């Protein structure tokens, strides 16, 4: 991928940076191109490349008449070209209609030069000329060394708009300066007549330079032609197009997967089997660490539970969390629940009521609105947040002023980002002990925090596996044990499905291979 030299990126520099940068440009560049050329750009060939590619966008300004926003809305060249082409097409369409309705005399619309240019914008005939032009430009490409291949990417080559073609072609290479003047048309100098010659645009578009008027090619034909060209435009383009059209999944595969997973989960549930061995206790240090943290809590310890569970993964997180929360209840900890998800408090209630069967031993502080910002605010000034203020006056919370006053912060999370936000924000404010119960999907990421230096997370129970270990540690069967056999069978079925569907075409001879992704940079 080539970086676009041809645009004018400074347009988007903040004003104050622009000013600084202009000061920095020591060279007394007289014309208005000064702002566009980096002072240190001394490499001649680079300059040529820049100029050449800048010429490509010669016609861009005409498409976007200066408006209030123009100073910060500069098209990158490739986008501008596509749009220009599109607009030319529509202009041509409009013209066709107009020509049908009225006479064929081109009407010159009064003031802005841009609109004049549009009036001269291609009729079918001009388009065909432009198309011919495209051919003449594309063919000599190899010899134009100053036009580095990267300057005009191949994908753009096939769809090069007429005006741009003219501008970037060998003929226009002799007149680079109009481009620079036109470029300023979008900037603060827009509208200054001395700076903006209109004529070159008209001559370019109006087409004194067209090489032939052989075939009249309609817009649609031209589109077809460009599409065809694109299809045969070279090896890389072909492989991209092919890989893009990956086959639609066959419906029966979906049925097969659904059916197999359904069966695999149902059978153990129906037979209530508990034969699959649970992971051995003490084999996962992170799980043991959380167990020890809770085991070592003082009597009636104050625990803050950040309940960051979304409704979608509630079912899975519930299985992971039940044993840990039950352990807390067993230790008679005072559980205080807070959530930055609107649905968090309701789900926390559901977990405590339906899962644990507790309605008394916890306080649901409610919804902490504002995402990470609110966590930060809460971490530094827990009493100043919008959580139900009356609850802070509850006897259990009266002595708690900061998060450090809690004995443990337990994050129950379905998503790594949410847990991350707590770890980051609370970690920045206090050295509070933090542990997490998470969905299996979040655990690899949280594992990285477990191992960070200094360790920001002290313990972790991830998914049904973590819960199974935890239950084993507590020597109490729970939800994880209940689902463990099903899990084992479903996992087995999934692996079988992945391998059999994935490999059957390779094993069976004679099956045509599906489109393959190319082996390039994709990591």
């Amino acid at each position, binding site marked *: 991928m080539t970086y676009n030299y041809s645009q004018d990126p400074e347009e988007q520099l903040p004003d104050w*940076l622009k000013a600084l940068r202009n000061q920095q440009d020591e060279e007394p560049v007289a014309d208005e191109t000064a702002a566009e050329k980096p002072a240190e750009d001394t490499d001649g060939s680079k300059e040529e490349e820049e100029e050449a590619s800048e010429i490509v966008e010669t016609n861009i300004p005409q498409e976007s008449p200066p408006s209030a926003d123009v100073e910060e809305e500069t098209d990158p060249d490739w986008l501008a070209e596509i749009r220009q082409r599109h607009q030319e097409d529509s202009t041509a369409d409009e013209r066709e209609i107009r020509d049908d309705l009225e006479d064929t005399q081109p009407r010159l619309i009064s003031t802005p030069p841009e609109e004049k240019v549009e009036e001269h914008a291609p009729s079918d005939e001009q388009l065909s000329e432009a198309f011919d032009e495209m051919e003449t430009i594309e063919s000599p490409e190899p010899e134009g060394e100053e036009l580095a291949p990267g300057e005009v990417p191949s994908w753009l080559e096939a769809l090069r708009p007429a005006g741009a073609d003219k501008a970037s072609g060998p003929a226009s290479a002799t007149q680079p300066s109009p481009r620079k003047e036109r470029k300023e048309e979008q900037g603060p100098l827009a509208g200054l007549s001395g700076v903006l010659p209109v004529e070159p645009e008209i001559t370019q578009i109006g087409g004194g330079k067209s090489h032939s008027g052989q075939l009249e090619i309609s817009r649609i034909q031209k589109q077809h032609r460009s599409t065809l060209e694109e299809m045969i435009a070279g090896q890389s383009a072909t492989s991209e197009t092919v890989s893009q059209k990956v086959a639609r999944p066959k419906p029966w595969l979906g049925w097969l997967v659904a059916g197999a997973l359904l069966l695999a989960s149902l059978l153990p549930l129906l037979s209530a089997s508990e034969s699959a061995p649970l992971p051995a206790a003490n084999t996962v240090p992170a799980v043991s660490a959380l167990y020890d943290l809770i085991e070592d809590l003082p009597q009636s310890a104050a625990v803050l539970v950040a309940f960051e569970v979304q409704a979608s993964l509630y079912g899975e997180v519930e299985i992971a969390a039940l044993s840990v929360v039950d352990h807390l209840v067993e230790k008679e900890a005072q559980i205080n629940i807070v959530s930055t998800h609107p649905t968090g408090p309701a789900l926390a209630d559901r977990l405590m009521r339906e899962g644990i069967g507790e309605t008394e031993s916890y306080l649901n502080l409610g919804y902490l609105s504002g995402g990470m910002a609110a966590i930060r605010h809460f971490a530094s000034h827990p009493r100043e947040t919008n959580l139900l203020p009356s609850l802070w006056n509850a006897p259990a919370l009266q002595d708690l002023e900061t998060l450090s006053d809690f004995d443990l912060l337990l994050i129950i999370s379905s998503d*790594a980002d949410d847990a991350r936000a707590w770890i980051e924000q609370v970690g920045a404010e206090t050295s509070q002990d933090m542990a997490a119960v998470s969905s299996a999907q979040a655990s690899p990421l949280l594992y990285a925090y477990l191992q960070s230096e200094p360790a920001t997370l002290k313990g972790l129970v991830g998914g049904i596996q973590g819960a199974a270990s935890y239950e084993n540690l507590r020597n109490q069967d729970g939800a994880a044990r209940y689902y463990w056999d099903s899990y084992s069978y479903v996992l087995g079925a999934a692996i079988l499905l992945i391998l059999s569907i994935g490999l059957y075409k390779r094993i069976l001879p004679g099956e045509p291979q599906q489109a393959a992704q190319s082996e390039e940079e994709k990591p």
Partner: protein
Amino acid sequence: MTSLEIGFIALGFALILVFSLLGSGRRNGTFREIKAFSRLRKNIELSVEDGTRLHVSLGRGGLLGPQSAAAFAGLNLLREVSQVASDSDQPPLATTGEAVLALLAQDTLRANYKTLNIGEEFSNRYAQVVGLSAMAYSAGLMSPILDNEVSASALVGNFGEEVGLITTAGQRSRSFTLGGSDGLSSQAILFASANEALIGEELYASAAYLGGSTAQEASLRGQDILRILIALSIIGLALSNLIDVVL
């Protein structure tokens, strides 16, 4: 914040400012190829030519957290895409799962419509909130994709596991999907299912690769320098720790 954190942030500022001022992107030449962006361009181009609708999905990350950066990257991409396609037969559609993002997407589109002098054609419906929870968001995206209302989707922002449903819909309707997320799990899903996936920090480079500003390119240069410094620090730390143990 520790002085190390402050120093790191200051270094980041300094590098990006210096590279912006020097306009280094021009001087130093090219960036490595990221195929996803080339293919996105091709699809933008095809979509404009065919008069079909492009879809930019900005994810569901709120602005009040680190996910905001992914959302901003998505907005930058939307800006680039809408500049070319806003006045086509089917103007691009921006969807979000976060209300603030929808407002910003509307702002971005509105600005482009104004620039194209078609401001009166703008409607807030071109930047929609499609659902306000993770799954509702994916639900809101599945329908238009399944019904082929969009020809190509660029999913650039903060996504979670729900992105798998969106790409599944894309596979079923055979529409092009480019995906980039700041969430690593969703990156893994996108890698396996999207036509093109942006991995790691490639997501944040989208605007620079599609022709963004000097500062956007400068920030890539700055990131490169910071990354090298980080790699060197890691190696240095690891070796010094190791020597400490051995001695």
